[in-house]
């Protein structure tokens, strides 16, 4: 068959697919597509695919090949695109998808937790015993600032200045900007063979442990611990989870196992993303608690009580949410 006959025979079909794709490329509101027409896409598309293959093997003219290639390309985009009921998927994710993903990868979580907790405990202990230890981590000015922030004789412990609801809001914005950003960076650092995530975990562990040990030694425990214990349930756990997600990337790059490195990385990233997004939601909750609750001047006992509840909630959620009745993960 000559090219001209070929074109004459099939052009109506190509035009039909082209018109259908034109319609599908419109935004949902402008579209005027009934089910029957939309259902014709797979058949039409596959016919044009075979026309394209024929035209290529028969060495028809480049312009015709390009025309058909373009049609196939557009059809492929529409037939194989992934659409999602994103609202439903988000709810399902919070209700169980996230904790399930975390439990699937609990090895990474435990490794990240150790990398965070061990330096925190060691340096915390050292700072508790040795008053000069904190200076190995911070300079004098930073230490003085940190001490004055949690000084029980200050007017509003927990922050350097008196706080109004205005500042609460401001700090809420700041915690979102800063803390979720840190979480994302902790994850992204995993691309550097896991070293970036590990560094962030160690560093944050050292700072937090050091500060906690030092302030406790000074006798500021009620101002410090009552401030951090509440939102810490969300914040610290979430940072460790982000670190775990980063370690997954690093592991895939260093030891891809049976796969090649890039496919291993892709698979790990898709799983790690679940952890990161879950952690981001936890950091959002942490920002809320930290801005509007942690800074309140209620009795320390009440704040400790709430902190215990929040920790129990986080642990319970991560350990039990989304389990099926048959005792799977």
């Amino acid at each position, binding site marked *: 068959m000559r090219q001209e006959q070929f074109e004459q025979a099939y052009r109506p079909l190509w035009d039909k697919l082209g018109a259908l794709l034109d319609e599908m490329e419109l935004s949902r509101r402008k579209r005027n597509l009934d089910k029957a027409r939309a259902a014709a896409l797979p058949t039409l598309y596959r016919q044009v695919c075979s026309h394209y293959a024929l035209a290529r093997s028969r060495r*028809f003219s480049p312009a015709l090949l390009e025309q058909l290639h373009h049609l196939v390309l557009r059809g492929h985009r529409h037939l194989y695109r992934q659409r999602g009921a994103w609202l439903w998927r988000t709810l399902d994710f919070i209700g169980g998808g996230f904790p399930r993903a975390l439990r699937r990868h609990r090895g990474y979580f435990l490794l990240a937790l150790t990398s965070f907790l061990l330096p925190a405990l060691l340096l915390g202990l050292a700072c508790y015993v040795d008053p000069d230890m904190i200076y190995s981590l911070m300079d004098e000015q930073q230490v003085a600032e940190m001490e004055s922030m949690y000084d029980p004789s200050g007017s509003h412990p927990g922050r350097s200045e008196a706080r109004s609801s205005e500042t609460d809001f*401001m700090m809420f914005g700041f915690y979102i900007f800063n803390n979720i950003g840190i979480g994302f960076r902790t994850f*992204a650092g995993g691309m550097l063979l896991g070293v970036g995530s590990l560094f962030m975990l160690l560093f944050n562990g050292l700072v937090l442990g050091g500060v906690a040990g030092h302030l406790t030694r000074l006798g500021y425990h009620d101002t410090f611990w009552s401030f951090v214990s509440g939102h810490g349930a969300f914040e610290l756990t979430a940072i460790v989870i982000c670190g775990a997600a980063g370690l997954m990337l690093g592991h895939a790059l260093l030891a891809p196992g049976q796969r090649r490195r890039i496919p291993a990385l*892709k698979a790990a990233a898709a799983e790690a993303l679940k952890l990161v997004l879950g952690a981001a939601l936890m950091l959002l909750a942490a920002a809320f608690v930290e801005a509007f609750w942690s800074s309140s001047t209620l009795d320390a006992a009440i704040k400790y009580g709430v902190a215990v509840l929040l920790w129990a909630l986080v642990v319970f959620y991560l350990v039990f949410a989304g389990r099926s009745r048959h005792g799977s993960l």
Partner: protein
Amino acid sequence: MVTTEEVDTTRQYEIPEGVLLEFRLAGPLVRAGAWAIDAAIRAVLYIAIGLSFSYFGGVGVAIILIALFLIEWFYPVLFEVKSGATPGKKAMGIWVIHDNGTPVTLSASVIRNLLRAVDFMPVMYGFGLLSMLFNREFKRLGDLAAGTLVVYRDSYEKRPELPSSTAVRPGVELTESEQQAVLAFAERAPALSSERRVELAEILSEISGRKGERAVDGIYGYANWLMKGR
């Protein structure tokens, strides 16, 4: 001989229907251009939001900070999921797709944009550029992990018409690639300058025995014969 597949920055993907799709990959320079446009747009957004909410006290500052956070991390995600390209990429005629040619999904877009943080290190996309130069598909680290490609948005203009001429059977048997070359010439020739057209057509003077514009017309004749067979 070096084939075009080896020289061109294209990537082929075989779809389930068994035919090859071809994508033209976007290199570092065009992507840097797109980034610069986006950076300018983001700067304008930052200034506009910063100015308009700075009069609202603590709540205003909160809104500014949250907006900064969202723009820093999710500005590209929003546009990539909506239309495959940020305004900068759109202006440069490129967009983001999955390795298999389908439109980028939310999760892939989030992965590639969160990992932007390492691509940006140590300064100005140092790691990203290194990564792009070390793989065949110009992928930065985020693209590697997300399984995405940045390719030219193939704009299809109207198909060029074959200049009509009386069909002439070539004096020699043409191989398949020669037939393709004749057809390609005939379809592209109207877009060339007449000097270039003649110069190219006269390569076949030995076969056609023609010179000048008549040589061009001779090849149009071959092309018409190949296509229509009359």
